[in-house]
């Protein structure tokens, strides 16, 4: 990627970030009626006036946004109004948990999807391929919260194989305990992804395996295993990478339901609590943060994409 196109992309990124944060900021305006009386319905007049000043409701809309944005950028994400805890202190505890879960889920999904995708493409049309695809199609239709509930009830509560409802604070315990708490949420999140990744990789791989350069590799006398991994996998993994990249962003916050069901104190769980407690300021900060993270991850994927496929690098440089 040339410097010029990179600069263009960065510029785009900044614009998107501004708009995304602006939308997040506008969320609080969605609250019907007076936000202050919604946030602290039982507050004293003094507290209400303080909050009104905090939210900048006495200034113009744009300057409210700019103040809010400056606060966000300097790490001031507001505070909870019930107990005066700062959002950032919650964040430093919960974000690692969510990131950990996201990474585990992605790694877990890839660990299954990549070998299965390669194998089903290699043996496309076989019984193994058919069975794998049928199962994948079924898993696609299984909402992850249903799987999570089933896991939590049977594996967790009934058979007591793995713990749920970690209300432990701080969360990351010893590595073993950590894993025991993470395993079920990881599976619940990953299963659907396995199906998606598997299908993507399989269809791209089938297309790649029909390419002439695979025949060339074969005619070189290279064994099939090497051809699959060295020649076919990389050109087939671009769609997979894009979708996985999008999921990284989506999963940072998208695991809300899973975190709530398993009682995992991650970002999603905090969001859930904020909704229940009507902590709109905290909620707004969380949403903005997740949106920012999502945009940044997508940007990184975009850059990585052109590293993986020199043709794209070439086309983009030419364009």
């Amino acid at each position, binding site marked *: 990627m040339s410097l010029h196109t990179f600069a263009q992309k960065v510029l785009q990124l900044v614009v998107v970030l501004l708009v995304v944060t602006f939308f997040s900021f506008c969320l609080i305006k969605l609250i019907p009626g007076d936000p202050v009386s919604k946030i602290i319905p039982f507050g004293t007049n003094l507290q209400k006036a303080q909050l009104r000043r905090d939210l900048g409701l006495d200034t113009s809309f744009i300057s409210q946004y700019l103040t809010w944005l400056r606060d966000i950028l300097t790490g001031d994400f507001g505070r909870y109004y019930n107990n005066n805890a700062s959002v950032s202190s919650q964040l430093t505890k919960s974000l690692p948990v969510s990131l950990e879960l996201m990474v585990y889920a992605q790694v877990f999904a890839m660990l299954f999807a990549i070998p299965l995708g390669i194998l089903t493409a290699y043996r496309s049309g076989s019984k193994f391929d058919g069975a794998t695809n049928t199962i994948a199609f079924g898993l696609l239709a299984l909402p992850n919260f249903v799987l999570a509930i089933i896991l939590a009830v049977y594996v967790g509560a009934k058979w007591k194989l793995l713990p749920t409802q970690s209300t432990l604070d701080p969360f990351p315990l010893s590595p073993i305990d950590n894993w025991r708490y993470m395993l079920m949420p990881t599976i619940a999140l990953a299963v659907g992804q396995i199906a998606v990744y598997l299908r993507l990789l399989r269809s791209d791989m089938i297309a790649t395996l029909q390419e002439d350069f695979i025949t060339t590799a074969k*005619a070189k006398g290279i064994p099939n295993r090497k051809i699959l991994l060295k020649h076919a996998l990389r050109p087939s993994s671009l769609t997979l990478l894009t979708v996985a990249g999008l999921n990284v962003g989506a999963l940072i916050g998208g695991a809300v339901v899973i975190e709530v069901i398993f009682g995992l104190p991650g970002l999603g769980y905090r969001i859930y609590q904020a909704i229940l407690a009507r902590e709109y300021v905290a909620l707004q900060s969380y949403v903005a943060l997740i949106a920012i993270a999502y945009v940044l991850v997508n940007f990184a994927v975009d850059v990585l994409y052109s590293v993986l496929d020199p043709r794209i690098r070439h086309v983009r440089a030419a364009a």
Partner: protein
Amino acid sequence: MSLLRRRRSTEFIPAADRYPVEPLAGALLEVTDIRTHFETSRGLVRAVDGVSFSLERGKTLGIVGESGSGKSVLSRSVMGLLPKNGVVRSGSIRFEGRDTSQLAPDDQRKLWGTQMSMVFQDPMTSLNPVMKIGNQITEPLLYHLDISKSFARETAVSLLSSVGIPEPERRMKQYPHEMSGGMRQRVMIAIAIACGPKLLFADEPTTALDVTVQAQILDLLQAQQRERFMAMILVTHDLGVVAGRTDEIAVMYAGKIVEKAPTRTLFSQMRMPYTEALMHSIPKLSNPSHTRLNVIPGRPPDLVSPPKGCNFSPRCPYVQDKCRKEEPPLVRAEAAGHEYACWFPAGTPQGRAALERNVVAGAMSGVTAETVRVGTTPIGGGIKSGTTTTAPSTEGST
């Protein structure tokens, strides 16, 4: 160390030591009655249907035919590159006296690259787009030969320069899309000859290239072949390509060899009307401009249900009733090594008589005695479409 130096001094590694070498006597490749049929929803496609030939070390065999004649499938069958599923194969392929058609996949793979290799038709798609040129050349070297990475690199650089690529060091780091079609085909050739195969298949190596570089690539193939004493099977649809570059030519039609002869003999005494028609279809520089291009009327037969009798009969200007009923066997001609399959061979009294009859009978309204010159040196004229009454005149429909 001395070994290394010795290898470095030779630009190229003889790779015979990994394979039991038979005495040099005997043909390098002997193919007997091979058949390759594909199972399709329409029925069995007889892509190769009983082909035999042999090839000496260091010699070149040209396989010529229209698209759909089975020539590409033949070369892939011989090399063993076709899929296992849905393919019915029979016949024997003896490479250095060993039957390779019955080899297990792993044993067959040991032959590829080191004993036989292939240059493919389209260099634009035959190179891995996401792998550097250098790695694509060193890959078979590192896999088949027990050499170090740095030595493989050096070998690859010298291979690139030997196939006429300037600045080979720089090219090593490039990706295929940074090169022209001709350059890529040179790279393909470098890959194919990297491990010093004894037999090189060139499957329409110039069809996808610019006319201006076609001759260069063919010359390069020929030069490499001589230098390395490889045998080569050159597959093409263009008789002009094989004319000066092969020792022997086999003409294929509908999955069968219909004429085979040493190159000179073929051009001076062609017997099969199909060969003659192929010959006519080459545009001549000596023709006045705007001369109508000669085409072979009709189209290649359906390989699922080929016509009765001689496969070429529906398109043949010499066709007689016998041709439509009985399939002509491959018979020997007077000249050594010359075989053909025709009841009324061109350039013989029977052939002349057959053609005469057709013209007189007026069954072929588009053909006049003047346009179909009987003989071996055609001068202009045209076999226009509509010469046959049975074949559909839908050229270029594929």
